[in-house]
């Protein structure tokens, strides 16, 4: 079935995640999507921030960059913009994407660089052993909110949609097949594709697990028009706190960053001539 074997994308280093961590499912989904996508590993780069989830690049056989906390998406933006012929995937956790990296998330979505961004949402800071994350439930007690979380949880899908993302989807790590489909869709999409994967932390946030997530998720309404941003927003409003799964929005007219302004410089001019005439303009 696959164009490349998923094995092609597995690297020799075994994941260091806790046994049972949701991120294994995401990794699996990503490998499948890559296999289906069919580009060889050397044409793909995976860029991450910091967090358990952000370790993913080290477990894949592609090029990989593990940046600093919250900035993975910016590194990916630079890489893809400089090297448009590569396939660039960015990954991160909910803290990485929405706490320290929240602004980059927002601007990356609206900039619409042709990236695929996968957020592993465990509603907690896993790597630092269990503090409240932006997606953590209101009122829950964690190490950093011993008296209850005062904040309301952020819905990453809502944020992505309302920041201008042109491809927005959601999956469960316990369903790697769907994750693979959504990621593949993202790889094929021209512009920023955002896939939120609910991927539990079995060590530091046991209350949110495979079963509770499954129970809290919902299907998209029949006949949902994925090309309508209004319909997509509506899905979220109607979802009323549950997690709608699948492809929620895809802008068929998406213009990636590079193409948003008609450039008169599409052909690479002879550098030497350009520079000489520029220098001369200061004479």
């Amino acid at each position, binding site marked *: 079935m696959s164009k490349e074997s998923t094995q092609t994308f597995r690297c020799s280093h075994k994941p260091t995640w806790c046994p049972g961590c949701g991120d294994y499912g995401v990794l699996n989904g990503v490998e499948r999507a890559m296999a289906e996508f069919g580009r060889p590993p050397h044409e793909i*780069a995976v860029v991450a921030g910091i967090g358990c989830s952000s370790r993913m690049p080290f477990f894949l056989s592609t*090029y990989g960059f*593990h940046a600093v906390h919250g900035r993975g998406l910016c590194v990916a933006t*630079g890489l893809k913009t400089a090297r448009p012929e590569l396939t660039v995937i960015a990954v991160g956790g909910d803290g990485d994407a929405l706490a320290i990296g929240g602004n980059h998330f927002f601007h990356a979505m609206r900039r619409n660089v042709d990236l695929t961004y996968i957020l592993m949402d465990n509603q907690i800071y896993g790597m630092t052993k269990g503090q409240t994350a932006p997606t953590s439930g209101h009122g829950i007690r964690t190490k950093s909110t011993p008296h209850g979380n005062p904040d309301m949880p952020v819905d990453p899908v809502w944020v992505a949609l309302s920041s201008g993302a042109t491809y927005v989807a959601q999956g469960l790590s316990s369903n790697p097949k769907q994750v693979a489909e959504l990621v593949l869709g993202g790889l094929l999409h021209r512009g920023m594709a955002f896939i939120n994967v609910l991927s539990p932390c079995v060590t530091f946030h046991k209350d949110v697990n495979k079963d509770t997530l499954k129970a809290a998720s919902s299907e998209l309404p029949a006949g949902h028009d994925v090309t309508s941003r209004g319909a997509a927003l509506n899905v979220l409003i109607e979802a009323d706190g549950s997690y709608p799964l699948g492809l929620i929005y895809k802008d068929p007219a998406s213009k990636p960053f590079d193409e948003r302004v008609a450039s008169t410089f599409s052909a690479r001019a002879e550098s030497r001539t350009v520079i000489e005439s520029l220098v001369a303009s200061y*004479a």
Partner: protein
Amino acid sequence: MDRKSIVIRFDGQAGDGVLSTGQLLARAAARSGYEVLTQSFFLSEVRGGSSTFQVRLGYDPLLSPGERPDVVIALDEESAVKQSRELASDGLIMHPLGCDAETLGLKAGQESHGLDWKAIAVAAGATARSQNVVAAGFAAALVGIELGILEAGVAQRFAKDAAVAQANVRALNAGYESVTTALNGSRLSRRMAPSKGKPLLLLSGNEAVALGALVGGIRFYAGYPITPASEIMEILAKHLPRLGGKFIQAEDEIAALAMCIGASYGGQPALTATSGPGLSLMCELIGLAGVAEIPLVIADVQRAGPSTGMPTKDGQADLNLAVYGTHGDVPRAVLAAQTVADCFRQTIRAVNIAQKYHVPVILLSSQAISHSQETVELPNLDSISVYEEPLYPGPQAGEYQRYRAADDGMASLRAIPGTPGGMYRTGGLEHDVTGQPSADASNRVVMVERRAARLRAIEREHAKQETLGLPPNGRCQAGIIGWGRAASAAREAVPSLHASGWELGTFFPNLLWPLPVEPFQKLLEAGARVLYVCETNSSGQLAQLIRSQLSTLLVAHSVEVVSVTKDDGTPLSSREIQQQIERHAVNRTKHKSGSTLELGDIAHRASSEIPLQQ
């Protein structure tokens, strides 16, 4: 006429076009082959208000904008009154009709004349707004620049509208001719002899950095606007796309540097430009680039800090941050430009160091250089060496190791994403030779040494490019050191220090980190027992760096390192440098003849000296 240079200052209200007047004159002078240095003065607080532009021109390279103007051209009375206080003792001030030498409080030897700039413009068939072109013509005639060259400049400036251009050329001519009527013979004393030089480029420091970046091979820029660095971004935004390069205006400086890291990881030479606040924000990512060995250039156009400080004023107090700003020990290089020409050359050098040694390089410029224009020779692009990074070519026998051991602290071959067989993972974690994370102690020791050796390798190659100056007999009693704009002022101070009997060695390094050791060693061997370190900041940052890096040498030769500093928002001048050095020498002699020094006091003062006090 033994005048070596002349300083002309234009002053008027916002909207009077003072800037373009000055620029017209400056560019015409550069085209005539004069050396030119211009400076505009900003008032940081009030929008609008008055506007001042100064043009200095001469035959030899100019090291400072000059202090008191020889000629002031004031477009309104308020400006005339203000500038009359600044005028050189034998200066000439031109003012609009209606105020006289008395209103201006001129002293004997100073000269003033009134001209109705607007009326002249109108009479020439232009609008009153062309008064600034009249002024430009007047100034050109005064110093003796050919009318034709100015006419070409005016035509170019108003190229969009032929009628306007013609009217302005007429205004220019009227201004040019008005010299004869307005002055009574005194004009000849301000005339410069024709320059013998070739036409020169006229560039600001920021323009030079942008050009240097393009020539050096930078093909990716991400940045965030900030005074006084924004022009670098604006120029590259315009021209990178024509070279197949990419430009992104980022949401902040952190994003900007992270984007540069991504682009550079992808093999595109990348640069960002900022000022102090942005550099402070970039500290974390500098460490990432250091550990992952990502080539990178950060141009920091310093302004008077700390914090927001005085954003339109000059300062050079970001050296500590450039050298030490990130947690942990990490290799990097720091270069500083002293002139506009330097901005061009050192930017190219910065790109070369970054690409060759896989380190972040911080290039320090400052407000005073960034916005002042200087003449620069038309660069011969063929003679500029741009480092071509050898890359991992693709599948080889054995596993690709991004961080394999390399001789002498050199970088190892990079595999650029897209290269078959070179796939590796890296980032900010300590890693093994392949890039995979490792917290193993013995691996760590290897990697720490690898990074430290990189720094030594840079020093090895680049220290010898920094040149020491010694008196003809090869001996000196003291050394004068300086960096950035202050180095130019120090250079300017040297002849008169020599004239007053000082035997000085000079060392004005562009490379500040790793600090080049050998030139200092030679300086001390030549006899220097005091090093005067000139810089525009309050703590004496380079002086401290010298003390920290060269301690063994200083102890061996019993050398005193003395800070020559100022931190009031204006560049340290050659006059101030000379004064401070001479005052120090006097005190030193006093101390020597009196009781022993209170060493604690001195040691302490080293970290807290204030201008003119050490």
